[in-house]
């Protein structure tokens, strides 16, 4: 079911973009600027679907992540940026409500990479390579750093809870998580796809 919703999200994202043969000069920075500008109005429009303020913020952040995953060509194909942004958020809201109705754990899809929904062989290969690199990167970390990261990232423990569990300060846990995450990022960057 999780994978079906991922595909729906992907479908919504692509279909939110009015594809035309003509391209625009729109780039990612400009798209983000427009998103920032209309954020209050978008937030108001989401309230039709979601009432909880934290859930709205989560959804807007998910929308931002999806926008950041668009490549330059996809962005150039957007003729009406505002309309596109509203549609992305609206579709995510609808998905969110469906998910709530079906009682599906949000952890499975909230931050899922769109690329992981694909079944194309080369992308699956890259995905496996990424997995190996990440496993290797995590094994290279100092013990406490790895433990903090695993508890937060994979066991979904809030940083505060990790700090309590490990008997360390929240600042230390934040530093460990950042160190581990950026180590993974650097290792992934070294991989050429």
């Amino acid at each position, binding site marked *: 079911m999780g994978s079906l919703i991922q595909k729906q999200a992907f479908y919504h994202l692509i279909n939110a973009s009015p594809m035309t043969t003509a391209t625009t000069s729109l780039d990612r920075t400009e798209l983000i600027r427009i998103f920032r500008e209309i954020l209050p109005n978008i937030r108001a429009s989401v309230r039709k679907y979601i009432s909880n303020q934290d859930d709205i913020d989560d959804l*807007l952040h998910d929308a*931002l992540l999806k926008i950041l*995953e668009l490549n330059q060509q996809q962005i150039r194909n957007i003729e009406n940026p505002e309309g596109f942004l509203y549609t992305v958020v609206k579709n995510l809201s609808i998905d969110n409500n469906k998910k709530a109705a079906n009682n599906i754990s949000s952890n499975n899809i909230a*931050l899922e*990479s769109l690329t992981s929904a694909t079944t194309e062989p080369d992308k699956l290969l890259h995905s*496996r390579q990424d997995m190996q690199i990440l496993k290797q990167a995590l094994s290279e970390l100092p013990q406490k750093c*790895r433990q903090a990261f*695993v508890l937060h990232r*994979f066991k979904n423990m809030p940083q505060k809870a990790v700090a309590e569990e490990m008997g360390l300060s929240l600042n230390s846990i934040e530093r460990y998580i950042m160190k581990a995450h950026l180590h993974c990022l650097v290792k992934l960057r070294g991989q050429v796809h």
Partner: protein
Amino acid sequence: MATDMTIEQEAAERFYRVKDRNDDYKIDDLMAWLDTPEKIDAYAEVAKSWGKLNSVNPEEVATPPLASTSDPLQPALNVEPSLMSIPTPIIGQFRNRLLGGFVTLVILAITITSYIGLPTRHHANIGEIYRFALDDNSQIMLESNSQVTVYDGWGNRTVELISGSAYFDIVTNKDKPFRVLVNGITTTVLGTQFNVTRLGSDINIAVKEGRVQVENGNNDLVILQDNEVVAIGQRQMLSKQSNMDVDRLMEWRNGSIHFDNAPFEAVVARLQNYYAYPIQFVNPSTREKLVSGTFNHNDVPGFLAAVSELTGVQFEQASSGSIIIH
């Protein structure tokens, strides 16, 4: 944000803050930060790598159990046996006493330092807002060109505001009151959100939520509650005002400052925190003109141009960057 952080570290920090909701950092704050292609790229990469971690089976990442948590005082206590084990055949008991006294002094010094906390200096450069947290997750934001010294020990939470403006969102701890020292004024709180601004000898303390006690060097004391402000001048008189729009006084956290019929001199003193070059008056009477308006996004020349249009006061920007107001 701290200047010693890379853009990627900043992006990662903001990513966790939005996701983990450790503080009141919201998507709006993040969007305001995402104002350059470099920041956007860094954030995209951070988010993407986080997403890719979904492919890893956590069970395959070995995490052996941690050793027992270390006591912060343990290194000091460990010193004692090794020092005591120094052979003492010649000087005998005198040496033992000397060493015993020395160790006691070291332990005492470490205990006092741990109680008070070592001083840590934090500052925001011109044009930036710097945010940091104490060990208990109390949040402190510094306005552009502001500076504080923090003492965060196990029995003490004290911040000395050296210059500028700071906003505090303090976690309640009855056993460890939080104090802000500023030019002889002591503000004591248990848990609250408040703002302290220092411009020369003028101090302004505004409470958004909670209850704080403000005391001057003459033992005068006022209690401030929600939406109350105390203004303190050179003579350190405490002048309390109620039902104030304190959010306006704290707007600098979002990159803007609102001035409402403020003397031009005071306005310029505040703007100076956002501008690296001197801003000077030529005509003394101009200093007293009253100015209203909203200063946004570090644009000091832009703000002065708007003031000039409204009031007729002329200003010029020298090639060195300094600004002269006529």
